[in-house]
């Protein structure tokens, strides 16, 4: 039954949207299906990745950090070194080129941490597209630097004051804009959820992460990693690095969720630790933090990019079939991993990516000295300097609390 329906990963996915958007989703699906087989499109995207994004991104072994990971060897896939500072640019350049192919002149995007918004604003500047980014008011405050970056790039940033005023509400607002302006506007959805074809399309644009990393690890270590760790908000960087490894049965795929103040506290963004149940949010049938009435429960995480009550439907599928494992990482654990990587390796990770590092510390201890762990370092921490400095009490006048 389920596999005959459009855009499904097992039972998950689908297209739960207002009819007004269906024509645009079908147009998008048609264009991206053709584009992904068009040497002209693929060539232009590859050229941009070489000369603009800075691909392939390198891998870096981090032995001093690995001392805190049970002695297992740890290698980072450096998506933080991409232009704009995260993996988000992979997807955005693909969708911006599609926007041009569809003859649309305007792009809109939602953003949580601001990384996807910055990437979209960047691609819009590069291709001469008008750009509006929706961002929850709470996130505009905790990621103020990225708000300024988007504005410097010529984008309009619209703070969203409804609901929890974070990522989920920014998505709602972007959908509202899209329904009204779909004729000339493409919604550059930033993660592997939403209505079909977004989950599959966004994954395919990020798949390059895993394709490169798998070969790089084979070349450098002569074998596949024992585990691949990635943080999971909506789940785009994780699907990007997981996908090429799905058929490698010996490779554990480990997604790390925002554990907030601990799952027991109720203040977290962990969908897969028994708190979320299958439901519909933002156009997809997938795991959702919801109450008995089907109302969405607000998520909490120190990381704006992981602060999302739902998750991409392909992750729900991988979870149910047991191919991927998902664990919460608390704010405290993530910030400790942030501090450790910074001080042992001179690499400031995004707080999102620090969750993946905390996962590597855990799995490394399980694996021991023979283990090899690949971590997707999905973004850099420049945007988080203020949050981290406050967390560790490093700002002037804060020393007393440190």
């Amino acid at each position, binding site marked *: 039954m389920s596999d005959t329906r459009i855009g499904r990963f097992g039972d998950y996915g689908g297209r*739960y949207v207002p009819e007004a958007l269906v024509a645009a989703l079908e147009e998008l699906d048609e264009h991206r299906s053709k584009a992904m087989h068009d040497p002209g499109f693929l060539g232009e995207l590859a050229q941009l990745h070489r000369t603009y994004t800075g691909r392939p991104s390198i891998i870096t072994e981090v032995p001093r950090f690995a001392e805190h990971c049970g002695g297992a060897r740890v290698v980072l896939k450096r998506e933080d070194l991409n232009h704009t500072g995260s993996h988000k640019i992979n997807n955005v350049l693909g969708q911006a080129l599609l926007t041009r192919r569809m003859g649309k002149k305007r792009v809109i995007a939602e953003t949580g941490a601001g990384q996807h918004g910055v990437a979209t604003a960047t691609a819009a500047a590069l291709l001469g597209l008008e750009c509006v980014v929706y961002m929850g008011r709470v996130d505009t405050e905790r990621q103020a630097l990225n708000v300024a970056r988007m504005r410097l790039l010529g984008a309009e940033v619209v703070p969203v004051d409804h609901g929890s005023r974070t990522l989920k509400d920014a998505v709602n607002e972007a959908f509202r804009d899209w329904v009204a302006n779909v004729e000339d506007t493409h919604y550059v959805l930033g993660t592997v959820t939403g209505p079909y074809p977004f989950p599959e399309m966004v994954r395919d644009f990020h798949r390059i992460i895993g394709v490169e990393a798998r070969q790089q690890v084979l070349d450098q270590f002569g074998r596949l990693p024992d585990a691949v760790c990635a943080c999971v908000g909506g789940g785009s960087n994780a699907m990007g690095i997981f996908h090429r490894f799905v058929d490698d049965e010996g490779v554990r795929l480990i997604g790390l969720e925002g554990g907030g103040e601990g799952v027991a506290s109720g203040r977290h963004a962990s969908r897969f630790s028994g708190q979320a149940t299958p439901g519909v949010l933002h156009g997809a049938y997938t795991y959702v933090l919801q109450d008995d009435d089907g109302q969405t429960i607000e998520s909490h995480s120190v990381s704006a990019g992981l602060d999302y009550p739902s998750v991409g439907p392909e992750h729900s599928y991988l979870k149910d079939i047991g191919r991927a494992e998902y664990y919460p990482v608390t704010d405290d654990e993530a910030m400790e991993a942030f501090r450790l990587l910074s001080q042992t390796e001179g690499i400031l990770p995004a707080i999102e990516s620090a969750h993946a590092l905390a996962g590597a510390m855990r799995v490394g201890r399980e694996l021991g000295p023979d283990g090899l762990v690949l971590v997707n370092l999905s973004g850099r921490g420049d945007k988080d300097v203020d949050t981290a400095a406050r967390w560790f009490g490093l700002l002037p006048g804060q020393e007393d609390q440190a």
Partner: protein
Amino acid sequence: MSASTVSKVLAAAKDDGRAALIGYLPVGFPSVEGSLRAMEVLVENGVDIVEIGLPYTDPLMDGPVIQTAATRALEGGVRVADVFRAGRAVSATGAGALVMTYWNPVLRYGADRFAAELAGAGVSGLITPDLVPDEAQDWLEASEAHDLDRVFLVAPSSTPERLQSTTAASRGFVYATALMGVTGARTSVGSAASVLVGRVREVTDLPVCVGLGVSTREQVAEVARFADGVIVGSALVRCLVDAPDPDTGLKDLGALAADLAQGVRR
């Protein structure tokens, strides 16, 4: 399968040579009791069918007015079961009752169980703004089993193929959105609505009702010339949102409903 109350109300209005007036209010705002009373006020002032909204945390087809009401209703503790209470209250007036809801609350409740409770409350069916027939297998089955109307939306962007398939899956009436956008008052209705209604009539004999952006008596009258029903939401909800106290809200609501009712009766 028998004609629903909503179908009968639409047919009766047609026999009178006029369009029906459909008014939307969310249950639970300003309180559950207050919302039930407000729905009765709509009927007392000439509204033929009440569209009972189920407040939802993520209403992506709604503009600021309905979002505000929904948020406050949820803060006030409104529950899914309250729509069945509202359904009974509206049905008791003799007016048609429909529930408008995003899909997840129904999915969580169980489509069949939800349908059974709707039918028990005398509600004619559901309007589903984020559920297209392609994804509606559960609802198609539940609505058949409990003899309920299925009101799907069509939009100016709907392709001819989708107008055909969506209307074929519909029961009761077809909800034509007057424009591309979310709920909320607009300064003019524009030509998209009449064009869309014309396209819908080519593929179905079901009644066609028009909503989104209709807020004044003049706009109601304009839409009533080419549609079988006119749907007003945000303008009514605004009366309750803007009121300094519930009694004033009900008074303003009654006055607006009476004014809008003139729009379908001249």
